[in-house]
C-alpha cells in the first residue's frame, strides 16, 4: 500500500466517524442524564432507516431531508416511549439491569414490528446520489458519504449549541454532572428526562436514516451499530458529547485500518500478516470488551489518570 491509499483510508475513516458520532450521541445523552443503557437504540436506528425509506418511496423526499425530518418525529416518539415505559423505572444514579432489560424487551418489540411492517428482506435507499462518487486524483469518495458526513457534523454542532445555550441544555448538563445539586436548585428532573429521552431518540432516528443511506438494512439492522455505539460512548467517557466525537474517530480509524495495517507475527521468524477482511467485524466487538475492561472511564479517564500521576 502506498501513501495515497493510506490517505484514502484515512479520509474514509473520518467520513465514517461523522456518522458514527451522530449514531452514538443519542445513546450518550440518555445514559448521561438517566443512567439507562438504551438497548432499544438499535431499534430506533432501524426505524430511522425505514422512516427515510418510506419518506423517499412514498413522498419522494430526499433521504437527507428525510433524516432531518426524522429529528422532530423521533423526538416526539421518544417522549412517548418515555411517557409509556421509561418513567416507571425506579430512579437510580447507577445503571440498573432492570432498565437495560426493559429497553431490550422494547427492542424486541420494535424489531418484530419492523418485521410485520416491512418484512425481512434487505432494503436500501437508492438515489442517483447514493451510487456516484467524486474523484480527487487517485482517491474516489462516495458522494453520499460526504453528504452524510456534513449532515452529521451540522447536527452535532446544533446539538452542542442546544446543550450550551438553552435552559434545557443547561438543566441536562446539570443533571449529568451532579443530579443532587441540580434537583436542589430546581431542575425538573422528570421533565428533563422526558426531553432527554426524546432528544436521544431523535438523534438515533436521524443517525438511522443516515446509516440507511450508506448500508442496506433489515429489521435486525441496528445490532452491530448498537455495539459500535457502546464502544464509542465508553471510549468517550460515557457522558460527554465531545467525548463521543473522539470515540467515533478512534473506532472508525481502527476499523478502517484494521485490515490495512500489517501486524507483526512471530512463527519461527518475524513476518507480517494482514487481518483478513472476514475478521474485520471482530474489531469493534473486541475493542468493546477491551475498552470496558482496561479503561472503563474512557480515553478521557486515561488522560486524567496520566495527569494525576504527573
Amino acid at each position, binding site marked *: 500500500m502506498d501513501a495515497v491509499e493510506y490517505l484514502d483510508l484515512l479520509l474514509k475513516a473520518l467520513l465514517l466517524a461523522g456518522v458514527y458520532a451522530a449514531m452514538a450521541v443519542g445513546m450518550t445523552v440518555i445514559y448521561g442524564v438517566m443512567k439507562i443503557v438504551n438497548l432499544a437504540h438499535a431499534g430506533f436506528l432501524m426505524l430511522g432507516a425505514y422512516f427515510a425509506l418510506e419518506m423517499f418511496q412514498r413522498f419522494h423526499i430526499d433521504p437527507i431531508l428525510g433524516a432531518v425530518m426524522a429529528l422532530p418525529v423521533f423526538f416526539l416518539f421518544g417522549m412517548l416511549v418515555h411517557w409509556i415505559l421509561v418513567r416507571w423505572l425506579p430512579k437510580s444514579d447507577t445503571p*440498573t439491569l*432492570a432498565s437495560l432489560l426493559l429497553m431490550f*424487551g422494547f427492542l424486541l418489540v420494535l424489531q418484530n414490528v419492523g418485521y410485520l411492517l416491512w418484512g425481512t428482506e434487505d432494503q436500501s435507499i437508492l438515489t442517483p446520489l447514493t451510487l456516484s462518487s467524486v474523484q480527487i486524483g487517485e482517491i474516489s469518495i462516495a458522494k453520499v458519504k460526504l453528504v452524510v458526513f456534513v449532515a452529521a457534523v451540522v447536527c452535532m454542532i446544533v446539538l452542542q449549541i442546544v446543550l450550551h445555550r438553552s435552559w434545557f441544555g443547561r438543566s441536562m448538563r446539570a443533571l449529568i454532572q451532579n443530579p443532587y445539586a441540580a434537583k436542589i436548585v430546581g431542575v425538573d428532573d422528570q421533565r428533563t428526562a422526558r426531553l432527554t429521552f426524546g432528544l436521544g431518540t431523535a438523534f438515533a432516528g436521524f443517525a438511522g436514516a443516515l446509516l440507511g443511506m450508506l448500508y442496506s438494512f433489515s429489521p435486525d439492522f441496528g445490532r*452491530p451499530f448498537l455495539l459500535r455505539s*457502546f464502544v464509542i460512548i465508553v471510549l468517550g467517557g460515557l457522558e460527554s458529547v465531545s467525548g463521543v466525537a473522539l470515540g467515533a474517530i478512534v473506532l472508525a480509524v481502527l476499523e478502517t485500518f484494521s485490515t490495512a495495517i500489517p501486524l507483526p507475527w512471530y512463527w519461527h521468524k518475524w513476518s507480517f500478516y494482514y487481518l483478513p477482511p472476514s475478521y474485520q467485524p471482530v474489531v469493534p*466487538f*473486541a475493542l468493546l*470488551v477491551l475498552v470496558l475492561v482496561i479503561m472503563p472511564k474512557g480515553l478521557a479517564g486515561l488522560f486524567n489518570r496520566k495527569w494525576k500521576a504527573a
Partner: protein
Amino acid sequence: MKRPLGAAGWIKVILPWILLAGLLLLPATHPSDNLIRLLFITAVWTTTSLGWNLLGGMAGQVSFGFAVFFGLGAYTTALLMHAGHSPYFGFVGGAAIAMLASFLIGLPTFRLRGPYFVIATIGVTEAVRVIMNNLDVTGGASGYRITEDKPFSPLEHYYTAIAAVALAFVVSMVIAGSKFGLALRAIKQDEDAAADLGVNPFTSKLWIHAIAAGLTGIAGGIYARRAAFFYPGDVFAFQTGISILLMPVIGGIGTVWGAVLGGVVFGMVEEELVVHFPNLHLLIYGSLLIVIILLEPDGLLGLLRRLFRLFRRKREDSGSPDADQILWGRGGVEGRKF
C-alpha cells in the same frame, strides 16, 4: 431447624419426582414422534435455562453470552465424536471446554459490574461468532456435520436430554440450598457487603459461571448430536444467547422452578407457535419482558403464585421463608423493589 411441611410443602417435594417419572414413562404410551422431539428440544432449552439461572438468577450477573458455551459444547462434542469417542464422552468434553472458556471470559469481565458486564458479554458473543465463522478447523461458516453409524434413535436422544435436565435441576437445587447458594444470593444483592462478610465475590462468580457454562455446554452437545448439522451462525448466534437469557427471566428469575417454567414455555412457543405464526415470537418475548420488568419481576412463576394466592387469601407470606426463598423466592431483577 425442622419445620413440618404443609400440603404446599409436600407438593414442592414430590413434584419433581412426579414430573421425572412421567417423563421417563411417557415413551411407553407410544406418543407421536413430534411430541418426543418437542420434549427433547424443550429439555435442552430448559437445561440452558437452569444453567443461566445459576449465574444470572442466583448470582445476579446477567449475561448475553451463553451462546458461546452452547456453541462450544456443540462443536466439542462433534469434534470428539468425529475422533471416534462416545457421544457421552463428547458431552463431558463439551462441558469441560465450555467451563474453560467461562474462565477465560470471566477473568476480565467479572471486574465489571451490572450493565457493563452485560455489554461486555454481548461483545464477547459477537466476536466469538465471527471468529468461529472463519475458523478452518471447524469448517467455518459452512458448519459441521456429525455422522453416526448407528440408526437414529429418537428415544436415546430424548432420555439424554431428560438426564441433562435432571442434572441441571439437581445441581441448581443443591446449590440453592447450600452455603454457596447463600453467598451467591448475597453477591446478587450487594457485592461489597458480601465481601465484608468473607465471601469472595470474584471467585464465587467465576465458579458459578463455570458451572452454568458446563451445563450449557452439555445442552449444546446434546442439541448438536441430534441436529447432526449446525453452524456458527446458528449455535453461536446472538439470538441463541438471548433465548437462553429470556427463558429464566420470563419464567421467574432467580428461582429454580421459574427457570424450568421459562424453558418449557419457550420450547412450546418456539416449536409450536412459531410454526404457525412465524413472525410473532419476538413480539411475545419483548412484551413479556416489558411486563415482567415493570409489573411482575418474578415472571410467570410470580404470576402463577399470585393467581394461586388469589384463591387462598389467608395464606401467610413468610410461613416458611427458607423453602419459599429457594423454590419460589422473590428473586426479582435488581433495582426493582416493591
